[in-house]
């Protein structure tokens, strides 16, 4: 009974802290702008199955992608064992899902085997991070804390898996020594059980309890660390793929505010009517966090800083300042900085700083070729170029700020309908003296 009470209190604390964190994050979303409507559920579900569950984009780097897929699929099966542990803890029972029969055997066996596979994969990741030089883990945005964040999360997952493996092995040995029925199938547990063969029934029971509590408490702690870590993608990546922008990568989003203005300019009658000309117009483009869309912010919370985007960016790989990963890391950081003030004071809160300039420089933004390699590569379907162009929109339309070459291009288009200084009269010169052999 005491165990049940302690467990119930632990789970209440876990859920309480988690709810607090999530509600705060949700409150920040209120300050973001609308984006595409969420329709086409069938299409979205298919993308989620492929990209999240099938790990298709992770496999664009097959070797390391394989290890990540093992970890992801491992989490998917181990979670059923965790659910059983919570039921057991709350009701003071053991292996409560055993009533499922064969299905329970499958759940336990797959969780047991995957615990080992995940542990091995995590060791591979840790070795890579600690002892190998992986260029995409470096960059101006990768501070010491980013590396610590990664290593802490990996270490916690490793401990989670070791406690699970220990729990299964000691469970098997305990039941064997005590001559009781083993519920579930534990291929790795059976293999490792002899390690504990020297222990008495009491010793085995204690070992099992220590592993059980370590595992469940680590889950609770991990769940509450995640929203503050880049490993929040554990929660966010599956929904983020479901919420993928469905347009072709080449397409930019239309600015309807501008369409109204341009239509008024082109149609003189509309100008004379001047409907609602005094209505306040919101800022063009993105300067700070309240200008980004909910999807941009969702993307920023999903980013796990893997750097695949940056590693394929033509600007970054040729030594320019731009790093697509930084665009989203900085968005998340800026919202963390400004969000509390926005919640407290309201949307007019001003701390004399902004996402554009205090975090992202103009030099970074102008280096983008909009080639979409970053968006193509992102394993969780984050879209970087649209946000980069949104910041360019602010610079050009609110501040008339752009590199001189671009300003020349603008005036050429305005004056002679081409980005270069050529007369429209000359548009057919290419066709002069054109002949075909017959």
């Amino acid at each position: 009974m005491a165990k049940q009470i302690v467990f119930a209190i632990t789970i209440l604390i876990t859920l309480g802290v988690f709810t607090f964190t999530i509600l705060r994050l949700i409150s920040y979303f209120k300050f973001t702008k609308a984006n595409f409507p969420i329709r086409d559920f069938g299409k979205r579900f298919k993308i989620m199955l492929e990209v999240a569950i099938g790990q298709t984009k992770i496999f664009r780097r097959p070797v390391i992608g394989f290890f990540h897929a093992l970890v992801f699929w491992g989490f998917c099966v181990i979670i059923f064992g965790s659910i059983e542990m919570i039921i057991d803890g709350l009701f003071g029972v053991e292996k409560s899902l055993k009533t499922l029969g064969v299905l329970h055997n499958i759940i336990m066996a797959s969780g047991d085997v995957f615990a080992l596979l995940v542990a091995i994969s995590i060791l591979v990741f840790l070795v890579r991070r600690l002892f190998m030089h992986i260029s995409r883990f470096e960059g101006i945005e990768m501070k010491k804390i980013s590396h610590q964040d990664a290593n802490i999360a990996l270490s916690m997952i490793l401990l989670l898996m070791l406690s699970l493996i220990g729990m299964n092995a000691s469970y098997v040995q305990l039941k064997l020594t005590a001559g009781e029925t083993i519920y579930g199938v534990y291929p790795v547990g059976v293999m490792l059980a002899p390690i504990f063969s020297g222990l008495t029934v009491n010793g085995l029971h204690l070992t099992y309890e220590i592993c059980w509590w370590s595992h469940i408490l680590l889950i609770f702690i991990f769940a509450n660390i995640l929203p503050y870590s880049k490993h929040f993608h554990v929660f966010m990546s599956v929904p983020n793929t479901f919420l993928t922008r469905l347009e072709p990568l080449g397409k930019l989003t239309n600015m309807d505010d501008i369409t109204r203005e341009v239509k008024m300019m082109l149609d003189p009658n509309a100008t004379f009517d001047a409907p609602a000309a005094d209505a306040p117009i919101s800022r063009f483009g993105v300067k700070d966090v309240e200008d980004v869309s909910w999807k941009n912010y969702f993307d920023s919370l999903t980013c796990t800083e893997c750097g695949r985007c940056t590693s394929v960016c033509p600007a970054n790989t040729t030594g320019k300042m731009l790093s697509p990963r930084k665009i989203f890391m900085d968005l998340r950081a800026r919202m963390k900085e400004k969000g509390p003030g926005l919640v407290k004071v309201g949307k007019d809160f001003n701390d004399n700083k902004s996402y554009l300039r205090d975090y992202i420089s103009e030099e970074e933004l102008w280096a983008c070729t909009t080639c979409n390699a970053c968006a193509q590569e992102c394993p969780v379907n984050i879209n970087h170029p649209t946000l980069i162009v949104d910041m360019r929109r602010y610079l050009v339309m609110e501040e008339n700020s752009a590199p001189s070459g671009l300003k020349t291009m603008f005036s050429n288009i305005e004056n002679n309908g081409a980005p270069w200084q050529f007369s429209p009269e000359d548009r057919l010169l290419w066709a002069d003296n054109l002949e075909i052999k017959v």
Partner: protein
Amino acid sequence: METKKIEIPVMADLFARGEKPEYLFWVGCAGAFDDRYKKVTRAFAKILTHLNISYAVLGKEESCTGDPARRAGNEMLYQMQALQNIAILNGYEVKKIITICPHCFNIFKNEYTDLGGNYEVINYIQFLDKYIENGSIKLDAGMLGNTRITYHDPCYLGRGNDIYAEPRSILKKLTNDFVELERNKSFSYCCGAGGAQMFKEAEPGKKEVFIERTEEVLRSDAKIVATACPFCMTMLTDGLKYKNKEDVKNFDIAELIVQVLDL
């Protein structure tokens, strides 16, 4: 061999005579003004004539789609261009547009739709592939034979619009020695000119993007690097010049077809 002069049909003339061509051939600014790329426009116009396609160009009425302005953040200028272009296109009751430039293709296909410009938009590579597949264009691999050819994917055909198969299908009929670059299809590496980079100096860095891509082209040992975009052509041609590798040639796919067909 005799030659025949090609008169390029202009939409306004046809319309005045009460004729309506099936396709509008959108030449684009590079197609009209860039000296190197004008040869691609000429090559494609020869193929259109060879195939007896019912088409016309806008000529003096054509104006920038607004793509470079839009990608540089000037949405206002883009929409001014777009709405005026749409008015002209709709005035001529245009239903189908063929583009050679992938940037024009992308903006007509994906972005003009938001402003009331709805057309069937066909990129010339898709168009050429269709006429090769149905036998109207007969390619003889003997011409280019064993010349090693590689292909640089333009971002706005490839990643932007998932057109990967058609250019490869054509090139494999033009040569027996088609090779891929190290980074190809959806992994392809930008030439460095997209997103309005074509019109500005590059930011400080340790290398130019077009040099990085040119070096990759040279590593493939191809004699010809085929492209399908005016900006990619400028960048790679410059890259080859810069590297003093003028024995490696950069041709557009339409030019290679014209060479083989000997038009």
